[in-house]
């Protein structure tokens, strides 16, 4: 019985504040005549009209595909290059200042630069997303590979584990918590770049559509766009957490165990 109560209390705590905020927003805005802050009722009734059918296929889907493509390129390139740079001390020393500089460039300024090369098509957007996402992944991989436990490294060597097996079972595995930290940072950068590259120059996509609404003073429609972007960010971060939990299950388990024992 106590268990049920505890679960109910937890559930209440999780739901209470969001529900309260929505209710406050709903009633505070209900008879709002301010053009910029339309009633939540209007926004919610507009939502299904705006984001179904043609627009879902023509704007949301292309955006997501570009994000996936750019993010995947960045992940592959970041982990591959990071492993190489992290494994060799000299390579790392040579590359470090350049990498630090490239990472420090705010990713959105790459949009105009890459536009010169790639025009305003999908290639440009994928390239922008990839070139912004790659740095946190790359640098975190370098750190992770560097920090491989030397005892394990020696053990692997004395057991004759080398080449791909060493890479897979020792290097990438022990670097994976760091790599995931990089992937997580890259995800939010990716979403930002997806939106910005579309706001800058595009003929479809989420960012493009939302700016169109704003310029056309279709304020409730614009608000639905903002909500959709928020929802998208939330869903992607939940999906990421699920993937991470699966992939790093061994790591979290070990950390919890050591925390309990300490």
């Amino acid at each position, binding site marked *: 019985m106590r268990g049920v109560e505890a679960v109910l209390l*937890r559930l209440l705590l999780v739901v209470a504040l969001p529900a309260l905020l929505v209710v406050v927003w709903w009633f505070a805005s209900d008879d709002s005549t301010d053009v*910029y802050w339309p009633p939540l009722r209007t926004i919610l009734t507009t939502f299904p009209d705006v984001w179904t059918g043609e627009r879902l296929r023509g704007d949301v889907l292309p955006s997501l595909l570009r994000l996936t493509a750019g993010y995947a390129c960045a992940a592959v390139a970041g982990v591959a290059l990071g492993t190489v740079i992290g494994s060799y001390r000299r390579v790392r020393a040579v590359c470090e200042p350049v990498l*630090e500089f490239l990472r420090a460039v705010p990713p959105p300024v790459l949009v105009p630069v890459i536009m010169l090369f790639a025009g305003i098509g999908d290639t440009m957007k994928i390239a922008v997303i990839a070139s912004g996402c790659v740095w946190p992944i790359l640098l975190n991989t370098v750190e992770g590979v560097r920090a491989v436990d030397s005892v394990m490294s020696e053990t692997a060597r004395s057991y004759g584990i080398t080449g791909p097996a060493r890479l897979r079972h020792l290097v990438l595995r022990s670097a994976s918590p760091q790599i995931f930290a990089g992937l997580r940072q890259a995800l939010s950068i990716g979403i*930002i770049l997806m*939106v910005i590259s579309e706001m800058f120059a595009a003929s479809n996509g989420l960012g493009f559509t939302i700016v169109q609404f704003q310029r056309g003073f279709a304020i409730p429609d614009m608000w639905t766009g903002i909500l959709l972007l928020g929802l998208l960010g*939330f869903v992607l971060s939940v999906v990421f957490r699920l993937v991470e939990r699966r992939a790093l299950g061994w790591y979290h388990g070990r950390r919890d165990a050591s925390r309990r024992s300490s």
Partner: protein
Amino acid sequence: MRGANALLGASGLAAFLALGEAVPRLGVVDEDYFPPTSRIADAFATELADEAFWTALGDTLTGWALGLVIAVTAGILAGVLISVTPYLREATASTIEFLRPIPSVALIPLAVLLYGTELRSVLLLVVYASFWQVLVQVMYGVQDVDPVAEETARSYGLGTWARIRHVLWPTALPYVMTGVRLAAAVALILAVTAELVIGAPGLGARIAVAQTSQAVPEMYALVVVTGLLGLLINVGARTVERRALAWHQSVRGEVAV
């Protein structure tokens, strides 16, 4: 060892610059798209002599610094308050988890409508984006407080304020510093983004103008400036972190090795 690394790093940087000079000169890529390093350096020097450039730099830094200060103050206050109040942590967790991943650029259309190209547009985006970085780190930090130390302080009769000051704050400070460092980088990204997309005065707006007027070397020079700015901010934040945590194990340990 350190000297050798610095030498290797410098040679890496030199190679990078040389590559930037050689690739367009050899015609691998079109010079109109990718000017050689020397022309970018020229444009950079011209920028430095231009008064409008310094105004733009000042605008960007104002937006960055003001936004960062607001976000850090709000983040620390909210984080400590949420963490020390019973039940508040559980009650806010789902809301924070929901609001945090909302991309700050989603607010761009709203910022444009509300404030146009004013500084307040930039601040809205900068504060929203960097606030979460600080808040979440503060909450991790408070969670990390040693229960034994906390109980000890309690049994010695320290009040809430004294416990925050002497037990909670020192434990949380490394996390807070990490949060500030992350927030400083994010704040620059958002400040430049707001200028680039909305057109608020600053380096970002100057980049957008250079791009539309086909002033390619100037555009690259400005991109380099934003990179240098980012680098300075990173290095500065690390130094502040090191100073503030000079007493802490993680920093002292590093020095000893």
